[in-house]
C-alpha cells in the first residue's frame, strides 16, 4: 500500500519534463513560480537544487503572452498606440516613445520642441515611478515590508501629477505621432517642482533605512555577477549593463529627443553584482530629478505646440520602409522596429524588450548560489513580466 504517487506518472508539464532530462541524480527540481511571491507576476523558474544550492536554472515564461506583435499587424498605426502602454506597466512612456519615434522616423514627422521637452519631463517622471516600484518590490523580495509603502507614498504623488496630462495612472497612452496628446498646465509644473524638492529630502531616508542597512548590504553584495562579457553575450542593457561598469545609456550615447541638452551623469558601478545594479538605480533617481528640473526650466522657452500641425490620424497611411528606434527605458534599451508596406496597417512591428535580454542572463548568473540569493538576483534584474512576455 503506497500513498505516494508513482514518480513516473508525476511528470509535470512539458518544461518540467524537458528540464528533468538533464537532471543529475539526487537533486531536487523546484518550480519557483509561476505563482510565487517574488517572481513578480507569472514568471516561473525551474531550479535544480542540491540542498539549497542552485545547480541549474531555466526561466520559463509566456504565461502572460498577449501577442502584441500580432495585434500590431491587425490594427492601424495609430490604433496600436494604446498597446504600448500595456507592454510594460512599469515604464510605459518609454514604449510610447519608442513606438512613436519609430513611426516618426518612418514617416518623417517633425516633433515640435515643446513636445520634445514635455516628453522628456513625463518620461523621466515615469522612470522615477518605475524605479520606485522596483525599489519597493525588491526590498519586499528581500523580506522587508515597510519600504514599499514609503516608495508608494512618493509614487502616488507622481501618479497624481502624471494623471493631469495623461488622464491615466498606470498604462499611459500619452504620446502621439508628432507630439503628445495634451499640454502640461501650470499646476503640473508647480506640483512637479514641489515634488522634486520633497523627493530630494526623501532619498536620504531611503538610504538610511535600506541602502546603508547592513543586512541588505550583506544580502545583495557579491551575488549574481554579470560582467561586461556576459552583458555583451546576452545583450543586457540598462542598469544591468551600467552595474557592470559599462556607461551605456542611450540618453547619452545615442541621444534621442532632446536629451543632449541636459546635464546629467550616467551612474555606473564596477562591482557587477546585485548591489551594483541597486546603487545604479538609486543614483539614477537623483539624476532623473536633475533632468526634470532642467527640463522644467526649458519648458517655457520651448517653441511650438504640443502636437505638430497635421499630425497623422490613427487610420493614416504610412510610407513604405523600415525604421528602428530605441529609447532608454527604466530597464534598459526599449527598441521598436517597424516595417511598413505603405498601407494603414503595419506590416511588422517588432518589440525589443530589455527585460527579455536581462532575464536571459539569470540562468548563468545564478549558478552555485543559494535559493535566497536567486530571489535577490531576480529582483535586481528589475523584471516586468508583461514586457518579457509581450
Amino acid at each position, binding site marked *: 500500500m503506497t500513498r505516494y504517487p508513482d514518480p513516473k506518472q508525476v511528470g509535470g508539464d512539458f518544461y518540467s519534463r524537458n528540464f528533468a532530462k538533464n537532471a543529475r541524480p539526487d537533486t531536487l527540481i523546484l518550480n519557483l513560480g509561476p505563482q510565487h511571491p517574488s517572481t513578480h507576476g507569472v514568471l516561473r523558474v525551474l531550479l535544480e537544487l542540491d540542498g539549497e544550492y542552485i545547480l541549474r536554472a531555466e526561466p520559463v515564461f509566456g504565461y502572460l503572452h498577449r501577442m502584441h506583435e500580432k495585434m500590431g499587424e491587425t490594427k492601424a498605426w495609430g490604433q496600436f498606440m494604446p498597446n504600448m502602454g500595456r507592454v510594460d506597466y512599469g515604464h510605459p512612456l518609454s514604449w510610447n516613445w519608442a513606438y512613436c519615434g519609430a513611426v516618426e522616423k518612418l514617416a518623417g514627422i517633425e516633433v515640435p520642441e515643446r513636445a520634445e521637452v514635455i516628453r522628456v519631463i513625463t518620461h523621466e517622471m515615469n522612470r522615477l515611478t518605475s524605479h520606485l516600484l522596483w525599489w519597493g518590490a525588491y526590498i519586499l523580495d528581500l523580506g522587508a515590508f515597510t519600504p514599499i509603502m514609503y516608495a508608494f507614498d512618493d509614487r502616488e504623488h507622481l501618479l497624481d501629477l502624471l494623471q493631469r496630462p495623461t488622464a491615466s495612472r498606470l498604462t499611459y497612452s500619452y504620446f502621439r505621432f508628432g507630439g503628445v496628446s495634451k499640454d502640461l498646465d501650470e499646476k503640473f509644473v508647480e506640483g512637479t517642482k514641489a515634488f522634486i524638492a520633497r523627493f530630494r529630502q526623501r532619498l536620504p531616508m531611503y538610504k538610511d533605512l535600506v541602502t546603508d542597512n547592513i543586512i541588505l548590504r550583506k544580502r545583495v553584495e557579491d551575488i549574481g555577477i554579470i560582467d561586461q562579457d556576459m552583458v555583451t*553575450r546576452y*545583450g543586457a542593457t540598462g542598469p544591468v549593463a551600467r552595474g557592470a561598469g559599462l556607461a551605456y545609456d542611450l540618453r547619452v550615447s545615442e541621444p534621442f529627443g532632446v536629451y543632449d541638452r541636459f546635464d546629467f551623469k550616467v551612474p555606473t558601478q564596477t562591482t557587477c553584482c546585485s548591489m551594483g545594479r541597486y546603487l545604479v538605480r538609486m543614483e539614477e533617481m537623483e539624476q532623473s530629478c536633475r533632468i526634470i528640473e532642467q527640463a522644467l526650466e526649458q519648458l517655457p522657452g520651448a517653441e511650438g505646440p504640443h502636437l505638430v500641425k497635421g499630425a497623422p490620424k490613427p487610420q493614416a497611411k504610412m510610407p513604405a520602409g523600415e525604421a528602428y528606434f*530605441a529609447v532608454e527605458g527604466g530597464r534598459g*534599451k526599449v527598441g521598436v*522596429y517597424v516595417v511598413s508596406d505603405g498601407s494603414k496597417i503595419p506590416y*511588422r512591428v517588432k518589440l525589443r524588450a530589455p527585460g*527579455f535580454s536581462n532575464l536571459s542572463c539569470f540562468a548563468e548568473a545564478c549558478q552555485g548560489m543559494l535559493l535566497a540569493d536567486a530571489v535577490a538576483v531576480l529582483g535586481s534584474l528589475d523584471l516586468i513580466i508583461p514586457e518579457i512576455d509581450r
Partner: protein
Amino acid sequence: MKLFDNLPIECKARADYEKTGQEWVFFFKPGVLRKAVQRLYKDGWFLEDLLALDTTDGMLLVYHFDKMSRPGRVTLKVLTSGTEPKIPTISDIYQGADWHEREVYDFHGVVFEGHPNLIPLLLPAEEDQRIEPPLLKTDKKRTGLKNLMSLYETEVCSAAVEALFTEEPAEEAPAEG
C-alpha cells in the same frame, strides 16, 4: 565598416541613421552568417534583437547589432526559403540569441540548425496544444521585399539581391539554404 571585408557579402549598404535608425545593412547567405556574427562578437557588438519577416521573396531574418561604445546600428539580413525556413543558429556565439531564436521559431516557424534547445518559448509547449506560427502572413497580405524596404546606398551588391529590389518582380528567391 570594414569588419566583413574578406567575407562573401551579398550586399553592403549604408543606410541613413536619421531616417531608418540603421547605419549599415548587410545581406548574407545563411552559410556566411555565423562567420559574420563571430566577427561582430570579437569587435564588441551585442545582439539587440532578431526577427523574421515573411515576404513573397522568402523568409527574411533580420539581426540588429549595436555597440555600446558608439552609436550606430548594423543590420544583418539573411534570406531563406519561405516554405521551409532554416538557418544556422548563433546562440553559441551570443547566448542571448537563444531565446530570440526560440521566439522566432514560435512566431514564424524558422528552424535554427544546431540550436541546443529549440522548444517553444512563449506559445503553448505541450505537443497537443501547439499552434501554427501566428505571424506567418496570409498569401493575400504577403508582399515582396521591394515594397517594404529599399536597398539604400549600396557599396557592394550581388545581382541576386539587386534583382529583389528592382521594379520587375524577381522570378524566385535566390538565396537558398
